[in-house]
């Protein structure tokens, strides 16, 4: 396959691809892998794989509670990873970075602890929680469950026909009853990049807290949480060239410090007696049990890798490849993009339909040519319902994606049409 380097001259996709062993895979029928499913999960560069393996092979021990040399090494590696992640997203303090198992746990953690707060922030039957119709299930179900527990009312922003958040009702939707506004920064289904600033401003005006699901943003955009203005931000390691099994909840320290714990157990306590327990300060308070040690180390290596590339360059590559793909895909007859069709305020996930061929059949046909896309509802059923479709096919890109791979996708779609005679 020819690999072209369409973006900034310093950004050498061919060279980057060499860092990812799986990209050399040959699939069934000796087809090269064309991986266009990075919004689902990203691949891992050798440095991340090695960091995890080396940790197990040489520095393995439990953290915090082990005071021997291996324990000190493991603790330094684990807490060093927290420092790296904090720096990578511009967190004002390392103690604001809570490690979770994935973004889903991070969002559930926030929903749980906000649901059990007593006092002025207590959520009750007259409270409202606001989300959007384009959320991933992981940012819908936790709030539905919170509403069941507390009696609060769930409300949501609608979506315009061109796949943007409908902010027309902002002032009515986010009002003095609103306790929490939780929304995605970048949609995994539509690709939309949402305008956070006006929503955060309005939410804070009425005293509501803002939770941002940055699962698709942190992998792709330069992020500075210090200036973003959100109260909580969730993201996930496996989508940003890091390991599975690790996510991050960032929270404003003063808020974290006043919130009750979520899971109880080792590491999160100050003292325990049979009658009662007291809890450690954040972030430990929210990290019960043996943490994801090797996974944090791997995530630290992942952010090192991303920083070595520069998140501006990563974002620029994403923008360029998305623009190219939007253009090329719209040349395919019968193809309809669900989501913004222009590369403005847009991430790289492109969901589409092809007239007469069901998305699963598209993905099956593409797969037979070595092209990996996702088909289904992408854990975002409501936004599919909004656009009157049950499922779509989705191509998504990352720092290792080439224009040649987009070309392969377009060819693959033409082949699919021929196969199904449409």
């Amino acid at each position, binding site marked *: 396959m020819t690999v072209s380097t369409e973006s900034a001259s310093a950004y050498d996709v061919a060279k980057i691809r060499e860092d990812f062993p799986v990209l050399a895979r040959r699939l069934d029928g000796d087809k090269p892998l064309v991986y266009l499913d990075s919004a689902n999960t990203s691949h891992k560069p050798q440095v991340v794989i090695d960091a995890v393996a080396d940790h197990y092979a040489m520095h393995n021990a439990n953290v915090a509670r082990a005071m021997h040399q291996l324990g000190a090494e493991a603790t330094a590696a684990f807490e060093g990873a927290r420092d790296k992640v904090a720096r990578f997203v511009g967190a004002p303090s390392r103690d604001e970075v809570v490690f979770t198992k994935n973004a889903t746990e991070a969002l559930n953690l926030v929903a749980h602890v906000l649901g059990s707060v007593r006092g002025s922030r207590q959520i009750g039957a007259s409270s409202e929680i606001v989300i959007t119709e384009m959320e991933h299930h992981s940012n819908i179900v936790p709030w539905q469950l919170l509403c069941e527990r507390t009696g609060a009312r769930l409300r949501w922003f609608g979506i315009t026909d061109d796949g943007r958040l409908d902010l027309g009702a902002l002032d009515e939707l986010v009002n003095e009853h609103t306790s929490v506004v939780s929304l995605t920064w970048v949609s995994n289904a539509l690709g939309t990049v949402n305008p956070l600033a006006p929503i955060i401003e309005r939410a804070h005006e009425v005293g509501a807290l803002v939770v941002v699901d940055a699962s698709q943003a942190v992998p792709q955009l330069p992020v500075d949480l210090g200036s973003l203005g959100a109260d909580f931000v969730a993201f996930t390691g496996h989508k940003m060239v890091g390991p599975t099994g690790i996510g991050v909840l960032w929270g404003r320290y003063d808020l974290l410090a006043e919130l009750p714990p979520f899971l109880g157990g080792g590491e999160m306590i100050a003292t325990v007696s049979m009658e009662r327990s007291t809890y450690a300060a954040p972030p430990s308070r929210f990290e019960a049990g043996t943490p994801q040690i090797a996974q944090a180390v791997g995530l630290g290596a992942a952010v090192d890798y991303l920083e070595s590339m520069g998140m501006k360059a990563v974002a620029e590559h994403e923008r360029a490849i998305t623009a190219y793909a939007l253009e090329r895909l719209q040349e395919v007859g019968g193809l309809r993009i669900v989501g913004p069709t222009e590369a403005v305020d847009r991430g790289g996930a492109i969901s589409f339909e092809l007239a007469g061929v*069901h998305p*699963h*059949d598209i993905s*099956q*046909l593409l797969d037979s040519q070595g092209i990996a896309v996702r088909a*289904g*509802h992408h854990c975002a059923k409501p936004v599919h319902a909004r656009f009157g479709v*049950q*499922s779509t096919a989705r191509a998504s890109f990352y720092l290792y994606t080439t224009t040649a791979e987009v070309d392969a996708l377009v060819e693959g779609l033409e082949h699919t049409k021929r196969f199904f005679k449409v």
Partner: protein
Amino acid sequence: MDLDGLYQEIILDHYRNPHGKGLREPFEAEVHHVNPTCGDEITLRVHLVGDTVADVSYDAEGCSISQASASVLNDLLIGKSVGAAMGLLADFQALMQGRGTIEPDEETLEDGVAFAGVAKFPARIKCALLSWMAWKDATSQAVTLKEDA
């Protein structure tokens, strides 16, 4: 990958012209099944007369495999006794889960034999079984209802 084995002409025909589609009255049980992985859905009704599967009507959305499978089910099961229909379900399920090692019997499974190739695509087996599982569920409910009555 044997794509032609997966997408046999019979399957594509059933997909384009599904048999017996649409929800009809009367019925004793209606179920709604979803494949959570991909979102394929089916609403399926069963009407029993005595011990006979008098009607299976359905409304479904999904890929060619799941749609064709519902259509073939419709052909195969209507008119059979509940026992015989359950036997066919067992045969079809065995075929799907046999990883391509089971030789289907065209006498009994008729157009269902076209699904033999699906068994080699683990991700698609659920598509082929969606309507069958819905039918099993609905029929069990209908039978229980009758017994209780």
